[in-house]
């Protein structure tokens, strides 16, 4: 991936800028492009982002955290490929949905509607659909980022 990044940068005439220490999007991608390592980083950021969103609302109500709550998700990107961007942001969305909804919905479903644990789990699976629009966000953010010199490695030709 690093070799590809340099090759792409060279074709766009920006190799010198990237190799001279300019830490841009290209460097972020190339430094984290290996599969498992990238997914681990993305999963941690997804969990962190979801946790931030959960802590923003009651019972925690750390409202100041709202100013940086989207930060982990934004740091996930750019991803090495559109598919990875979609998966990473979808994971965040799903964790967010479960984190925000499950703590109050689980006891409510069981106490007020008498649902069994299995039925409650089914309802929570349904809640996971809230993560789907975030998958679209991942794709949009990946596809829409500018092919600037510092992002030369991420031009459309290289996306997987």
């Amino acid at each position, binding site marked *: 991936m690093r070799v590809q990044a340099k090759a792409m940068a060279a074709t766009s005439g920006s190799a010198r800028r990237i190799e001279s220490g300019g830490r841009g999007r290209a460097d*972020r991608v190339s430094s984290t492009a290996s599969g498992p390592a990238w997914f681990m980083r993305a999963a941690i950021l997804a969990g962190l982002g979801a946790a931030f969103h959960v802590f923003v609302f009651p019972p925690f109500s750390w*409202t100041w955290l*709202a*100013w940086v709550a989207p930060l982990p998700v*934004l740091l996930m990107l750019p991803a090495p490929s559109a598919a990875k961007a979609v998966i990473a942001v979808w994971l965040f969305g799903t964790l967010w949905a479960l984190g*925000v*909804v499950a703590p109050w919905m689980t006891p409510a479903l069981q106490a007020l509607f008498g649902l069994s644990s299995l039925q409650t789990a089914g309802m929570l699976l349904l809640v996971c*659909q809230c993560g789907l629009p975030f998958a679209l966000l991942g794709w949009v953010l990946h596809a829409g980022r500018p092919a600037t010199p*510092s992002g030369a490695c991420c031009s459309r030709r290289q996306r997987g």
Partner: protein
Amino acid sequence: MSVEYLRAHVPFGTPWALLGLALAEAPTVAQIADVGGAYAISFTLVLASAALAETIAAGAAWQRLVPALTATATILGLVLGYGTFRYAAIRAAVAKAPTTRVALVHPEIPNAERLNPRQAVKLFEQNLTL
């Protein structure tokens, strides 16, 4: 912001926990909601995070972000300025407005009884006594 709007309307419509709602009790920032609803507050918050994320990503080359950061600071300043102006106007209007006394009644009826037609008369009378 678009994702929040999307998930609030499709596929099942779940407008839970919009990020902007977190600042409902921060009246200065929240005033922007009269322009674009809770989504406008979310936009403000995401804008701040995006600026921070880009700055972190740029590292030593952060100087190239000066125009973008300036634009972000301007927008945030406008939001806060509008909020300050609007909130002051609202407080002034509230101070001048006539007052009246209202009461809220919550009968705390169990869910099983609330949906039972046989309980309707009893519940109606219970509400009347409150």
